[in-house]
């Protein structure tokens, strides 16, 4: 029953929209302002030196391309795989930040520090997206794609 629902083309398309649009929107602010994103990365205190700036230069484009891959069906599995790995890494970063008591902005969807402070709600959001990604990864969408995956 659950398997047949999760393999339904329309259900899969809904998951693709959720995951794909999430990452496309998440990338826009970061591409526009890499320095603010680099500061958000540095605030996690997991990487030092120029690493946050290199991450801030490349990561938003990874998110954008993977988002388009999931939405369009082009390089679909590669896109889903990267997004799954990113989501796991982001979730671990947020959890370690929370455990260390960091009072920092997430740097997830917006770089506005007033909006996106890290919290357990962010962890649960990410877990939801990881579950959606796990449903998408073995699938092979045939509808609403630019070319069959």
């Amino acid at each position, binding site marked *: 029953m659950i398997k047949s629902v999760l393999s339904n083309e329309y259900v899969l398309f809904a998951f693709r929209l959720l995951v794909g649009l999430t990452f496309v929107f998440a990338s826009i602010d970061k*591409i526009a*302002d*890499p*320095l603010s994103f*680099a*500061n958000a990365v*540095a*605030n996690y*205190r997991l990487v*030092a*030196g*120029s690493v*946050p*700036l*290199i991450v*801030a*230069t*490349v*990561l*938003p*484009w*990874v998110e*954008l*391309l*993977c988002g388009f*891959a999931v939405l369009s069906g082009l*390089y*679909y*599995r*590669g*896109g*889903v*795989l*990267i997004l799954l790995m990113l989501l796991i890494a982001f979730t671990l970063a947020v959890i370690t930040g929370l455990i*260390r*008591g*960091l*009072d*920092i*902005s997430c740097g997830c969807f917006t770089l*506005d*520090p*007033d909006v996106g402070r890290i919290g357990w709600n962010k962890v649960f959001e990410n877990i939801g997206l990881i579950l959606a990604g796990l449903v998408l*990864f*073995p699938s092979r969408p045939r509808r609403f794609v630019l070319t069959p995956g």
Partner: protein
Amino acid sequence: MIRQAARESAFILCAAVLLGFTFSLFAGKGVFAPSGSFSAGATSRTASPPSPINVAEAKMLFESNTALFVDARHDFDFRRGHIKSAISLPLNEFDARQSTIAALPKDKVIIVYCDGAECNSSIELAAKLYDRGFSGVRFFPGGWEDWTSNNLPTEASK
């Protein structure tokens, strides 16, 4: 399936690196931004002024009424309780609170604090105030936690 995913992932990553660096080069943002515009995190600025202050020194300056305490936490936390006579200047409202900043005394010691040892906002706010010419600004890493655990004077906003 895994091999196909790995191949496609590699292609996407290469394309992202290429796009990221190209965009950075032409837009002057990211790694190719003018030098000095990224300081490897505001927290790494602790070695330069402003300097940290411990609870004993903060207490002494408070009792001699020679320092102004600035609370970098969110308004909500400030209203629930803050160091007596402190003023609220949340880090995330720095740009919107120009009148508050303009009213700060430049000839007095300004002590910025947030929750405690694990928060960044006092350091970041102190650095911003220092950049604005408040040379007497210092930050109090122990913050609200240290102050209250030493039973020092506090008040809540009405």
